[in-house]
């Protein structure tokens, strides 16, 4: 059976050239970057070269890049680290209702520790209202944390405008760029970003590696204490092989891949919207080049996902049945979807190696599957 992978927002395979770059660091160049002997120096050199390379990608001149275990750790670090280090300034944090769970759950935990959190709402397409953001900033606001490219509906926020507001009000600005990094240009200086979360396994790098950019001079406490690695902000022996792979991975998605994914994305949207009572969640413009998210009336998303699964198509859904909590996606609810419409959602996210034939086949299978499920559904007959 053909395998069609349309869940690239969940993770991507490691690119062959990334794999090649990493290999020596598992075996002959296995040194600990903190060791003073030649093996240690080799590792240290590879580590720092990787760091420099990734920093250039986002024009990081006034920032440190701290390597972490991934997006979740970076987001936790940004939120908890700045909250605790700036307690003397205040106890208020601003975020949105459409963040990744790791931001929302870190915020919920901070609320238990005595911090106050404002969760900004978004419009029908998932955009933050800049006036609402500005009005929410208080004297005791420490940090604004807003996701760059949304992982579910692909909405890309205007970092520059948000950065400007945060700069004017002298509050830290953090953005989670796990989905957008290397797909959308990011400039830490121009967009006035204080803290930026990135990760490796969404861009054809290995899992278990991520990073947090931190503007110099920002007060932040480490989550993990120990031997003082990573500027004393993240102790623990560096994952050199993973970091080398991460740096290599930042070269993988090229302009032509972005154009290719955008073209296929638009083709997929056009084809799927030929289905009756179906619509696209999230915006048409200012959308991640590889993201689509649809709702289909009268059916349930997890059933649809599994119908695609048996045909070899890997997808994802925001339906309640698919979640551990049995609640529909908080992002889809935040953009105003009724519960029944959030249940009938399907996310298809493209990769650089997706093909036109795959998209055509997916549209066909999707049409058949929606039709079959509507025949079973009590609401499917009109």
């Amino acid at each position, binding site marked *: 059976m053909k395998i069609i992978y349309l869940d690239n927002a969940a993770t991507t395979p490691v690119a062959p050239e990334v794999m090649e770059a990493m290999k020596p660091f598992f075996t002959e160049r296995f040194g600990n970057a903190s060791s003073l002997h030649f093996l240690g120096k080799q590792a240290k050199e590879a580590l720092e070269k990787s760091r420099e390379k990734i920093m250039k990608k986002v024009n990081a001149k006034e920032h440190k890049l701290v390597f972490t275990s991934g997006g979740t750790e970076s987001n936790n670090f940004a939120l908890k680290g700045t909250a605790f280090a700036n307690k003397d300034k205040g106890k208020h944090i601003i975020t949105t209702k459409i963040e990744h769970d790791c931001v929302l759950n870190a915020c919920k935990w901070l609320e238990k520790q005595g911090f106050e959190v404002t969760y900004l*709402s978004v419009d*029908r397409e998932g955009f933050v209202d800049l006036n609402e953001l500005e009005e929410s900033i208080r004297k005791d606001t420490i940090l604004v944390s807003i996701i760059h490219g949304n992982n579910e509906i692909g909405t890309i926020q205007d970092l520059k405008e948000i950065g400007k507001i945060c700069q004017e009000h002298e509050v830290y600005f953090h953005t989670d760029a796990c989905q957008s990094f290397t797909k959308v240009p990011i400039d830490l200086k121009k967009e006035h970003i204080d803290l930026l979360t990135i990760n490796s396994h969404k861009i054809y790098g290995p899992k278990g590696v991520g990073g947090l950019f931190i503007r110099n001079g920002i007060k932040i406490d480490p989550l993990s204490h120990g031997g003082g690695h990573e500027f004393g902000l993240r102790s623990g022996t560096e994952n050199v092989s993973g970091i080398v792979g991460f740096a290599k991975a930042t070269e993988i998605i090229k302009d032509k891949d972005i154009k290719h994914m955008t073209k296929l994305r638009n083709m997929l949207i056009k084809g799927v919207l030929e289905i009756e009572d179906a619509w696209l969640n999230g915006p048409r413009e200012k959308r991640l080049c590889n993201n689509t998210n649809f709702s289909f009336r*009268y*059916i*349930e998303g*997890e*059933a649809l996902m*599994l*119908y695609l699964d*048996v045909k070899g198509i890997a997808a994802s859904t925001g*339906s*309640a*049945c*698919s979640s*551990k909590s*049995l609640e*529909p996606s908080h992002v889809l*609810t935040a953009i*105003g*979807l*009724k*519960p*029944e419409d959030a*249940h009938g959602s399907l996310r298809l996210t493209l990769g650089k190696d997706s093909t036109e034939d795959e998209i055509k086949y997916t549209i066909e299978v999707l049409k058949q599957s929606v039709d079959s499920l509507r*025949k*079973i*559904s*009590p*609401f*499917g007959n009109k």
Partner: protein
Amino acid sequence: MHPRNVGEIKNADGTGEAGNIICGDVMKIYIKVKENKKGEKIISDIKFKTLGCVAAISTSSMITELVKGKTLNHALKITEEKIIESLGGLPPVKTHCSLLATDALKEAIYDYLSKNGLKIPKELVETHKKIEKELKIAEKKHKEVVKYTSKKEAG
């Protein structure tokens, strides 16, 4: 996946519905009732329609297979455990789906008995009341959520 007994029965002797749109699962069961040679009421035909995940559709399909041609008394005794066992197991997070199936079937039998002025077992009356109550709570919750989302739409 090939669910069995999908569909509706026109002029069904009893229909039952369970679940609610807010949690994403709705099941409707239609039954035809006849008497067998012994004079017992049996389910001569049964069909279902389900909006829900694969587990909900599977449990729906399974219960119709388990009770087709069986007496009403037998049908009322089908438990969630029996359905799960017949399916060869369900992940723990999905076990509640089997409740949907037993509830919908009980509602269909309740509907048949009450329409025909027949004696309704006490337990079945209680189940019916419980399902009605839960549906009201869910409808109220749904109204609240939709009120919030439509306000959003206007704004």
